[in-house]
């Protein structure tokens, strides 16, 4: 059962990573209009942080409705 437990943990990790892919793609479209450097500048970082936060807030508000 140690292996089964490990697989469960990996599966939940995979699910989280899948969501991270979805959010990165969605927030990329909102936050990055063009590419000027290889870095995320301060306002871009803020935009991604806010984008994920507000998306989750929106999701919670909708589920609670």
């Amino acid at each position, binding site marked *: 059962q140690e292996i089964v437990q490990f697989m469960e943990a990996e599966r939940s990790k995979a699910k989280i990573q899948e969501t991270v892919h979805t959010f990165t793609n*969605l927030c990329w479209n*909102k936050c990055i209009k063009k590419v000027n450097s290889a870095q995320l500048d301060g306002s871009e970082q803020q*935009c991604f942080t*806010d*984008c994920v*936060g*507000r*998306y989750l*807030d*929106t*999701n919670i*508000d*909708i*589920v609670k*409705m």
Partner: protein
Amino acid sequence: MSAALKDNIKKEIAAELAVANAQQLVTKMTENCFDMCVPKPGSSLSAAEKNCTAQCAQKYIMAWNLVSRVYITKLQQSGQR
């Protein structure tokens, strides 16, 4: 298999389908309403954004129900299944 057991299995299958359908609906609603109501996410949802999201979600459910009725009617008319 007893009738009671069969009923239980049916209920579980139906419940699982209903949950999957509801999750899919919530995901699509969140995607579309976030996109429309929160174009520039800030440090918290404003009252206007919350209001827009709530209206949007209700509208989305009404649209889902309408599309469902229209589609099922079309399926029946064309005799497809």
